[in-house]
């Protein structure tokens, strides 16, 4: 873990989300899906760093997909090509797959879909098409690797908020988009679509999810009811991001025992969903 100095190589704005591609002169450590970078917001006004998962990584650059929500992300949205930004990484454990995980369900809500998009590559070596963020369509699957099957369930509030569907369709066998208001894809939540698939006989070996409290709770229920292994990344507020201040803790019943307060930054942010007290 160390602080890197990045240069904004490109910026792409899509609705209230923007993508930053950050390059670094130093070689970057290898990172997997679910790990994050703790970004120093430029200027003196925002003091606490902001955590963002990577959604693309290579040896020379990382890409972040950032939703504008408050002061910090508004300031980051003002960054331009060529600007400098500092970030600490790699932080956290990230999403991992076991060899027994052949049927994989990815469940994401809103901006929570971004880190999931890296899973097929970082866990299974599936290469993404060079996807443009603007493309919003489901393309036919081109690859199936090592007998694995990935289904992606992506939920958004409304059509205008849907992102990355093309990216997911280039690395999953099936992509299901849901919107709360039914303006795009299926009306409802991604967990409704997952439940329907399970009832139709697609029993995932593992469910990986990222999103807000309601989503992770719904996924937890499914995992427990159907006895499916699951892992989640939540939205704990962070302080130091390095494991020292204990403000980011999550109650986790490790091995089914008594709940312990684990640090989401360095012990997580990915936890076994059945063990998390939500």
């Amino acid at each position, binding site marked *: 873990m160390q602080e890197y100095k990045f240069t904004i190589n490109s910026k792409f704005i899509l609705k209230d989300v923007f993508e930053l591609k950050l390059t670094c002169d130093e070689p970057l450590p290898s990172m997997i899906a679910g790990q994050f970078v703790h970004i120093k917001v430029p200027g003196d006004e925002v003091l*606490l760093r902001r955590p963002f998962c990577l959604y693309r990584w290579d040896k020379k650059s990382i890409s972040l997909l950032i939703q504008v929500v408050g002061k910090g992300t508004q300031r980051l949205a003002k960054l331009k090509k060529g600007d400098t930004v500092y970030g600490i990484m790699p932080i956290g454990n990230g999403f991992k797959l076991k060899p027994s995980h052949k049927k994989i369900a990815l469940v994401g809500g809103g901006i929570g879909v971004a880190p999931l998009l890296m899973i097929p590559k970082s866990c299974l070596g599936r290469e993404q098409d060079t996807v443009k963020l603007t493309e919003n369509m489901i393309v036919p699957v081109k690859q199936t690797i090592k007998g694995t099957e990935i289904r992606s369930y992506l939920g958004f509030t409304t059509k205008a908020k849907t992102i990355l569907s093309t990216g997911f369709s280039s690395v999953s066998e099936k992509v299901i988009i849901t919107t709360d208001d039914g303006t795009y894809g299926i009306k409802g939540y991604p967990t409704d679509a997952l439940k329907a698939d399970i009832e139709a006989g697609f029993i995932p070996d593992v469910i990986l999810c990222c999103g807000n409290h309601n989503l992770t709770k719904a996924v937890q229920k499914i995992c427990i009811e159907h006895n499916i292994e699951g892992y989640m990344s939540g939205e704990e507020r962070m302080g130091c991001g*390095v494991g*020292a201040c*204990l403000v980011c803790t999550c109650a986790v019943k490790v091995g089914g025992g008594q709940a312990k307060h684990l640090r989401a930054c360095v012990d997580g942010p990915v936890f076994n969903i059945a063990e998390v007290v939500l």
Partner: protein
Amino acid sequence: MSINRNKLKNKKALVNETQSSVANAEPNLEVEFCGKKFKNPIIAASGTFGFGREYNQFYDVSMLGGISTKGLTLEPREGNVGCRIAETASGMLNCVGLQNPGGKRFIEEELPFLDSLDTIILANVAGNTEEDYVALASMLAKTSVDMLELNISCPNVKEGGIAFGVNPCSVESIVKKVKAVSGDKPLVVKLSPNVASIRDNALAAEQGGADAISLINTLTGMAIDYKTRRPILGNITGGLSGPAIKPVALRQVYEAKRAVKIPIIGMGGIMTASDVMEFMIAGASLVQVGSANIYNPMAIKNIILELTILLKECNIVDVADLVSTLRA
């Protein structure tokens, strides 16, 4: 009048002379405090630095004057549930609630690492009852920690901590009892800023036998989400820290210094070397840096490097010369 002026002039000339002859020398950062030698006046503040391991990945933490450990209690504590941090203008609120491994596991699992460092270790002692404080302090007094820092000012645990720190009588009583079991470990008493009179509490600590006082702990505050009308913090209230509290901290260090003879460790919102100098001018012999670590893991290293440069710029040869030099 004219004589006085001449005297003043001569004194100035003398100062200028000595200053120019040492202008290139490295200023002395070493401070002797309660019989312990600190490499420099900067200590990592309790609760923001864990037990030193995490920041040791970023720089050699042996370069610090000292490290104050996370607040320890006799038994392990899981701390508060729910959200523990809220960002505020120029600061932050926290309600960690003294999550710590307990005295026994601290000694077994964390102290060996701290021992391997070449820096002064302050064990931050907290508790729910006087008996707990006494039991933990006497347990720690038998270890290799250099000093004890009695935390009677944590605003985030209902049953205790702060309960002992508000009333001067209870401050004196608990300090006396802990001092009796501290053996040869200097006892620093960490005061709460959430009190009627910091003077009275500083005096009470001194009277109880404290070797030094440290202040300030966090100021009690809260944050509300107007949309949900809910408190942001799981504990509803929390402790405010960071640059927002610096003016309050400076004032309290200044007032405490005028009340007591024992030395003071000042803290609250220190972000830069000039902040360190301001606290020392107000009366602190040493300082602690807390939230700045959370904002930037390299914070203290940068402050120490910056302090040397700043002292040179101000022609100060010994950092200790700054203490209590506030001019009229």
